[in-house]
């Protein structure tokens, strides 16, 4: 039993870690262990809010949508190594466009959501062009500035944003499924997130994704290898805009009202920071990272929304966790989790003790705070 597992791990590991050519073709119908685990994890995740009722589903939707928007940070920062402090502005464009399309033009949601995603392209292309000339710190300042400028122009344009009242968006009814209920919308978000994670994880090993990783590693070397750096950066920003715009559209459907004030300075910057923080905590360079980050941050944020003391506590907690992760485990929860699994395999007793400690501190801590508030 054990040797079998080891053999299978040995067979699957190279496919994951390196891109060795000419591996054994595996029968199509057989699931790998990784696929099985992710399927079970997805089902478990789908069931997670059930004990908490409606509130659980509401918080769950929030977390999932933030994870989707967070995926845009994975593409642009995790893969291409370009820091962007404006993911929430892209999401805002998506949300506003979905609002206009559905409330004003009467478009169905399955047309409005892609339109919201595509509508981010002009800004994404502009930022992408700038990112060719600006690196690192300068790009960080530039994206911060763009977020501010969008807040002063696009998000103050009453004809598009519906002014202070915003747009009222009704959640759609498709055949027998009414997305007005939180449960069905949660499932929709979950499916969307699953699709995006699958695509973004696939992007990592695709030609474009590897070009991005090469550009992140060393721009001059990438150029010497024949990679078009200009195009790669542009593609990274356009893809990240698409993902964030789609997430923003879902956010509009979740809230059912889109008001532009959330996307104006400095609230947009603050939320963008939260997004970048949660992605960095979860793990920037794997597509599953934002989900971990969203569970770690957004859930707490929503649960403690009413209780002011704890709301500040979440900000402080997020900051401390971010700083500690960036100092010692820049790969975030994904990296730390991998190390933990490795430790558990090598020294089961120590590993189990660590798992138990994490579980007890998290569950116990949450319980304690809920009991105190």
């Amino acid at each position: 039993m054990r040797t079998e597992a080891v053999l299978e791990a040995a067979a699957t590991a190279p496919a994951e870690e390196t891109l060795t050519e000419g591996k054994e073709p595996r029968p199509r119908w057989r699931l790998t262990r990784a696929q099985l685990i992710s399927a079970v994890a997805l089902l478990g995740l789908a069931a997670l809010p059930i004990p908490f009722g409606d509130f659980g589903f509401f918080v769950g939707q929030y977390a999932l949508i933030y994870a989707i928007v967070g995926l845009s940070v994975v593409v642009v920062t995790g893969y291409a190594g370009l820091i962007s402090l404006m993911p929430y502005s892209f999401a805002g464009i998506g949300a506003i466009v979905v609002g206009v399309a559905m409330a004003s033009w009467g478009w169905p949601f399955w047309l409005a959501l892609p339109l919201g995603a595509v509508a981010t392209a002009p800004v994404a292309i502009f930022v992408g062009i700038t990112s060719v000339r600006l690196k690192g710190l300068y790009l960080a300042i530039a994206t911060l500035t763009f977020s501010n400028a969008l807040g002063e122009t696009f998000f103050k344009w009453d004809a598009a944003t519906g002014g202070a009242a915003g747009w009222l968006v009704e959640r759609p009814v498709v055949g027998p499924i009414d997305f007005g209920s939180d449960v069905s919308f949660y499932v929709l978000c979950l499916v969307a997130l699953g699709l995006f994670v699958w695509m973004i994880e696939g992007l990592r090993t695709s030609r474009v994704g590897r070009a991005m990783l090469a550009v992140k590693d060393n721009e001059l070397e990438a150029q010497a290898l024949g990679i078009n750096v200009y195009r790669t950066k542009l593609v990274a920003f356009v893809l990240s805009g698409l993902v964030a715009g789609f997430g923003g559209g879902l956010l509009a459907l979740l809230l059912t009202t889109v008001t532009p004030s959330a996307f104006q300075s400095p609230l947009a910057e603050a939320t963008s920071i939260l997004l970048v923080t949660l992605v960095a905590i979860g793990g920037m360079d794997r597509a599953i990272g934002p989900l971990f980050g969203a569970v770690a941050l957004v859930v707490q944020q929503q649960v403690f929304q009413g209780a002011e003391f704890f709301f500040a506590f979440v900000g402080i907690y997020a900051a401390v966790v971010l700083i500690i992760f960036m100092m010692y485990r820049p790969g975030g929860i994904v990296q730390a989790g991998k190390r933990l699994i490795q430790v558990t395999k090598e020294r089961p007793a120590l590993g189990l003790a660590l798992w138990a400690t994490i579980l007890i501190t998290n569950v116990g801590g949450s319980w304690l705070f809920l009991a105190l508030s």
Partner: protein
Amino acid sequence: MILAAPVTEVTVFGLSSGAVYALLALGLVLIYRTTGVMNFAQWAIGLMGLVVYVVLTNLGVPGPVAAVIGMTSAVGGGVMAYRLVFRRITGSSQIIVILISIGIAQFFSSLAAFALGFEQFTRLQPWLPIVDWHVGSVAIRSSEIITTVTAIGVAFGFLLWFRMSRTGRALRAVAQNREAAMLAGIDAVRYSSIAWGIGSALGALALLLVLPHSAGEQGGLITVFDVTPFGTLLIPAFGAALVGGLVHLPMALVGGFVFGLSRELLVLAPQPWSEFRNSIAAILIVFLLLLRTERFFASRQELEALGG
């Protein structure tokens, strides 16, 4: 036809906000040159000082004393941030350093939000005298003049000290070449702490000059918009620092006034142009970034040492 009175009033206001940007920018540049960290937490650390000021004035401590204590606590916050965090991450990639500095910003702004108790508005008592002076038809508020004069005085004093004093020379040596300075027996960690302390004090002073006097005779307000990691004034401060390529202190001072005056003077422009008032900072920043101002003020070697 533009009247003389609004021009003067607007110019005075532009100068005072320019002075505030200049103080923030000087702090940013000092820390960036000495330690290679762009301090995204400049605003949040300053906010910490302001919160101390609010707490003390509510307890009845006289304003100027509370302001000094507030600045001192901001120094403490900045030095702590350097000693506990940034000192330990030298050699990390730039993305990591930026993310950590954003984390520090979030830490301090959350702390400030907690201390202020989440009000939509928090009233601030002024600590500078607020009198409206009437010169002919022109009304000028005393706090604006004092802000401008104080900021310019502090900035020039700082620049002079940076040029002349022993500590200033050591700071410049660390900024120019950290390794060589250490070989020459300069304690780089100590001087980096000093840079963080001064930079944070300048940030706190900027906030203490502008926010307690923002609402005229009633004093001032902190709104929820100010209690965010990047308050509204940090972006023009980045712009001001960019005028000096993020490394040149006197040009950062000039940059502060460029940003302050351009924003306020646009009020006087005819209708379609005055709409640009709020986005002028962003436009200027994009222009400065694309100009790549850093190459006018630093050699390639220095920029590489800073990680750019």
